[in-house]
């Protein structure tokens, strides 16, 4: 890393590189690890520092992403949105802000408020009247009395005023009689008349009473309560036309309904819908919320796991292998849930007699599809962990690398020191106050005041801060501190101003330099790598710098030797882990934990899917659900290893039960095999049971067979070996199933074949092993 960018001001042999924690100088593997480490370890130290570092780091990342437009190898997580630029070199298109917008919401709300008031008042009026109309006993009263009461609620429009039906335009006569709306008093013909059934009326009025009681319920705050308007209404009775039309006397009595016009009916019905919808949460929403929760969890956990897996695969000791394994299981568990939930969403309402609206089905399909995409995308990126033995190997390898590197560095540093001692004579100014020629306004006024702070600590630290600006900032900071100690307020103000300027300058310089860099990058493809490193170093420097800036300088720590190993050593390591069948240590460690873990998992899954429902479910979904065949391979079996354990512990019988309820069993298979599938191993199905000629038989047989003595059973060793082997196999099976699913989706039949063959082989190997363990 250092090759492209020689550190100019080294005082000693140590060079710090890689992702070092700015506070404890701990070497961390990747940027994200560093960030996490920082958040975990030092979150309490100093919020302010944290914020500063974060903002600087983020700036640096942003610059880097924008400029280099590619993902570093160590960054598998891409939380930011990356755009392809359609062949346009991105550096030409400076960051773009959101285009112009204009909001009409205020105007809209103003107009709406006026309208809503009107609307709400109208609806409330009708409901209050409705209440009055239903408050007396309709059945035991004679029609005339009811009419009088009804008339008292709302003034009726006089018959003479309305010669035609206002809705249909039909002329009123002896045959086409006038009818009055009991809610607004208007007149319509029989055809246009509607009825409010009493149950509906009660429902409406009761909910209103509740709603009116709720303080501050929207739009209804104006009406003081059910009782109030009654009083207000009464005085208006005087305006009722005293003439009751002759024809209306002939009207039949309405015992269980209230006549009204279509407009009133419409308003009431809409009001009712609204009330109903308020409390109603459809099933899909409940399921969907759970689905999103799982997805969030995955988004939260998966990067953590990937970080761990990467670190472990690189042979680092930052994380514990078991924790990572546990996390892997947890993440896979969430995938399970996502899959199950989305499948449930997909099949919602399919069993109902009335089929849901095609759009509802489409929505369900889309939710399922996006969940599938999510699982596909994230699951395929879920790398596997090294085995215990491999891990030890990796650790060893890494140690060796580190030692080698340190030695190299030492040698290089010795030579560099020699060279420097000669060079130092040639440029005393540079190292003395760090004022580089390109820095235009170095604040020298400090010396003019007669009070001269000494530039302490600058020299000793200068080796880390190769940027003259950074040095200057440091200088000023130390001056500032001294000035504060000396209580020179005017100086402090000036210095602070200087510091601010310098920091701005530094930021600007960073950006401009980065732009410069990217331009060069476009021209010289070959230099890309070294420039990337340069930028990374920049990041590091900025981190270091911030740390130095806001911390007590007296506490400077010595540069740690092992900090030298940056991400370089990681690159050198061979990351491709070879599966080893022998994993004693890991398995022994993880074994005791498992029984504790697995029963709740099992139960958790079992309860929502009783076997009968399951088969029913699967059979219906098979016929109606286009996704069903795809769903099979995506199934994950992380708990299966556990069930193996249980099997061993609790004997065959209990394990059989487990199997029967195993949620991960392929539904297709269940269907095919019916209830008989119970005692069988989930991996037996669609495997042809003929183990002969299986290439895996040899390879996997050898190790366990060599060590497994049939009488050895109570001894943990070999059995545990098998278990781990199985776990790995299961992992592989999971992966391959996911791939098959994927291949099927995109219709690559040759791949499907190949993959399913692989799957078969793996499964038969697994079985072979199982047979041996029992």
């Amino acid at each position: 890393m250092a090759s492209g960018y020689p550190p100019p001001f080294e005082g000693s042999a140590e060079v710090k590189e890689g992702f070092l924690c700015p506070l404890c100088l701990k070497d961390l593997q990747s940027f994200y690890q560093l960030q996490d480490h920082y958040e975990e370890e030092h979150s309490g130290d100093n919020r302010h520092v944290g914020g500063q570092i974060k903002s600087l780091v983020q700036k640096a990342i942003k610059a880097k992403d924008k400029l280099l437009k590619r993902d570093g190898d160590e960054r598998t997580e891409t939380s930011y949105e990356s755009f392809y630029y359609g062949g346009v070199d991105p550096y030409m298109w400076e960051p773009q802000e959101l285009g112009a917008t204009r909001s009409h919401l205020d105007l809209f709300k103003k107009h709406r408020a006026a309208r809503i008031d009107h609307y709400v008042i109208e609806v409330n009026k009708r409901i209050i009247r409705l209440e009055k109309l239903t408050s007396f006993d309709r059945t035991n009263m004679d029609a005339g009395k009811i009419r009088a009461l009804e008339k008292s609620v709302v003034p009726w429009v006089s018959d003479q005023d309305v010669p035609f039906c206002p809705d249909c335009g039909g002329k009123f006569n002896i045959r086409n009689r006038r009818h009055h709306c009991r809610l607004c008093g208007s007149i319509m013909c029989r055809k246009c008349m509607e009825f409010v059934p009493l149950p509906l009326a009660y429902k409406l009025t009761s909910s209103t009473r509740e709603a009116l009681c709720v303080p501050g319920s929207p739009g209804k705050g104006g009406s003081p309560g059910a009782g109030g308007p009654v009083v207000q209404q009464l005085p208006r009775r005087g305006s009722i036309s005293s003439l009751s039309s002759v024809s209306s006397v002939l009207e039949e009595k309405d015992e269980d309904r209230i006549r009204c016009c279509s407009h009133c009916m419409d308003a009431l019905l809409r009001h009712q819908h609204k009330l109903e919808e308020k409390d109603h949460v459809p099933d899909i929403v409940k399921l969907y919320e759970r689905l999103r929760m799982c997805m969030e969890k995955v988004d939260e956990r998966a990067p953590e796991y990937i970080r761990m897996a990467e670190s472990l695969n690189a042979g680092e000791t930052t994380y514990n292998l078991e924790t990572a394994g546990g996390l892997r299981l947890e993440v896979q568990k969430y995938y399970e849930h996502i899959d199950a939930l989305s499948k449930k969403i997909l099949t919602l309402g399919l069993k109902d007699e009335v089929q849901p609206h095609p759009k509802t089905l489409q929505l369900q399909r889309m939710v399922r599809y996006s969940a599938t995409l999510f699982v596909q995308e994230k699951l395929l990126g879920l790398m596997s962990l090294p085995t215990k033995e491999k891990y030890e190997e990796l650790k060893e390898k890494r140690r060796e690398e580190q030692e080698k590197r340190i030695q190299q560095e030492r040698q290089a540093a010795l030579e560099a020191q020699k060279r420097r001692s000669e060079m130092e004579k040639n440029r005393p100014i540079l190292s003395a106050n760090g004022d580089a020629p390109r820095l235009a306004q170095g604040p020298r006024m400090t010396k003019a005041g007669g009070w001269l702070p000494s530039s302490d600590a600058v020299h000793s630290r200068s080796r880390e801060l190769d940027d003259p600006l950074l040095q200057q900032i440091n200088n000023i900071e130390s001056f500032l501190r001294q000035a504060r100690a000396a209580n020179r307020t005017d100086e402090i103000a000036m210095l602070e101003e200087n510091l601010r300027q310098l920091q701005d300058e530094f930021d600007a310089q960073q950006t401009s330099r980065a732009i410069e860099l990217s331009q060069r990058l476009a021209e010289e493809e070959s230099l890309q790598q070294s420039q990337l490193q340069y930028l990374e170093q920049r990041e590091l420097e900025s981190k270091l710098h911030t740390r130095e800036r806001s911390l007590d300088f007296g506490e400077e720590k010595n540069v740690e030797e092992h900090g030298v190993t940056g991400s370089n050593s990681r690159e050198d390591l061979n990351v491709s882990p070879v599966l080893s069948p022998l994993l004693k240590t890991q398995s022994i460690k993880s074994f005791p934990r498992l029984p504790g873990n697995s029963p709740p998992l099992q139960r958790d899954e079992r309860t929502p899917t009783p076997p009968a429902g399951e088969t029913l479910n699967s059979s219906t979904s098979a016929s109606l659900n286009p996704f069903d065949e795809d769903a099979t391979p995506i199934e994950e079996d992380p708990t299966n290893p556990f069930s193996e354990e249980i099997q061993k512990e609790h004997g065959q019988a209990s394990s059989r039960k487990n199997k029967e309820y195993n949620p991960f069993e392929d539904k297709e298979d269940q269907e095919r095999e019916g209830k008989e599938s119970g005692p069988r191993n989930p991996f037996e199905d669609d495997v042809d049971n003929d183990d002969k000629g299986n290439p895996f038989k040899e390879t996997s047989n050898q190790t366990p067979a060599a060590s497994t003595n049939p009488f050895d059973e109570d001894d943990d060793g070999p059995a545990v070996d098998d278990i781990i082997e199985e776990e790995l196999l299961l992992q592989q099976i999971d992966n391959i199933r996911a791939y098959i699913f994927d291949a099927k989706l995109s219709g690559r039949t040759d791949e499907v074949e190949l993959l399913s063959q692989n799957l078969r082989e793996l499964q038969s190997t697994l079985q072979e092993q199982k047979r041996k363990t029992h």
Partner: protein
Amino acid sequence: MNVTLAVKQYISKMIESSGPGMKVLLMDKETTSIVSMVYTQSEILQKEVYLFERIDSQNRDNMKHLKAICFLRPTKENVENLIQELRRPKYSVYFIYFSNVISKSEVKALAEADEQEVVAEVQEFYGDFIAVNPHLFSLNLQGVARGRSWEPTVLPRVTQGLTSVLLSLKKCPMIRYQLSSDMAKRLAESVKQIITKEYELFDFRKTEVPPLLLILDRSDDAITPLLNQWTYQAMVHELLCLNNNRIDLSRVPGINKDLKEVVLSAENDEFYANNLYLNFGEIGTNIKNLMEDFQKKRPKGQQKLESITDMKAFVDNYPQFKKMSGTVSKHVTVVGELSRLVSERQLMEVSEVEQELACQNDHSNAQQNVRRLLQNPRVSELDAVRLVMLYALRYERHSSSILSSLMEELNRRGVSEKYRKIVQAMIDYGGKRVRGSDLITPTDAVAITKQFFKGLKGVENVYTQHQPLLHDTLDQLIKGRLKDSQFPYLGPSSLRDRPQDIIVFIIGGATYEEALTVYNLNRTMPGVRIVLGGTTIHNTKSERQLSEENRQTGSR
């Protein structure tokens, strides 16, 4: 100055501000294509948008558990549909975004319809154009002209589109237009009018050098759309017809059913993004590399995976492999089809003659070549007509023009009457009489020497000699040499400095060749950013239509 990003940001913003939960996107016909150009389905699904509905669709169910994001053009019909929608809301909340300026009275009408208080947002988000590439936009408008003037209904739409581009990029430009075209002038005035009327909207932070909007007319350079193109995107468009980033491959013999319609989007197809502007030969090489790369990763069909280690290596590689396989099969199919068409229609020879016609000034040679190709039975009808059109445009006034005998030749080939009429239509549309700048023969000394030197150096590639007129126009514009007499400023003020942000709009449509030119200019001119737009993106077929419409309407 990235139009794709501009639209994408608008859409992302809309979705983000609606909060979590299941969403439906309500659009009209035009906004559907606007959105689909910048977002893929899987991308937008990740943002919890699960349904895409047309506002005018009757077949929508009540789904109160969905939030609706309405992205609509502010047309009368849309507002009316929206009012109906709000009266009987099908979704729980409505976030309304109009793609352009909406009148206060319409806002009021909407507000009054919202009796159930379901509207949570009413905004104008100016994504009223189709972003084809980061520096290329289109309005997907055909038939913009009636004779030599605007189709009355289209001018407002073009104005809206163009102003929305300005607003989305936050540019308040000075305007220059092509003097020879009345349409350009009308459009310039119309845009200016909007800027004056909505001055509050256009009140952006002033830059040192104000941006520039240059409005041109297609008739000034009718030749460019007639030439066969050899860059990937342009070829796909010319030969397979690229529409909203989609191509229809259903006519390709023996096509796999999955590949009947493929999406070519630089946004999420890296290979396409990298090869958009490369020529056919380079693409061939790249495809080969891609294939080889793919073969290496591909699991060997018959080879058994011997150990778990092998298996693991395979599984680890699989995601990349899978991703690659989709890309590979798509591009291999497309390039395969392109090369089939090229050889079937003998496009290499045709293109050579076309380029010669467009760039050289050797009449006798040209006429021989054209005649020779017209007699070649494998040259398609379309290409034959195209050659004659080029000849006609090029040697319109040549003393010994053989146009009439070429027309006879076409007749003998059995080319339909309709096609033959187009030749005349083309001359009417883009002939010398209407051209503002000199498309073919350079007149000033500088240009002559330039051409002379070009001749000395020889041509690098016979198929790509032609430089569209736009290149010269922009080059002069950037150097500050574009004549005010030909391209006057609208209004009194003029630009003294070298322009930095340039938006070029071609009435009658841009071409992918011009897009390439702009792309190259963007690359080679530091500090200059150019965005190209057109009422549509042309290929030969659409240009032919254009001139045809022009003729029909003109003679009316």
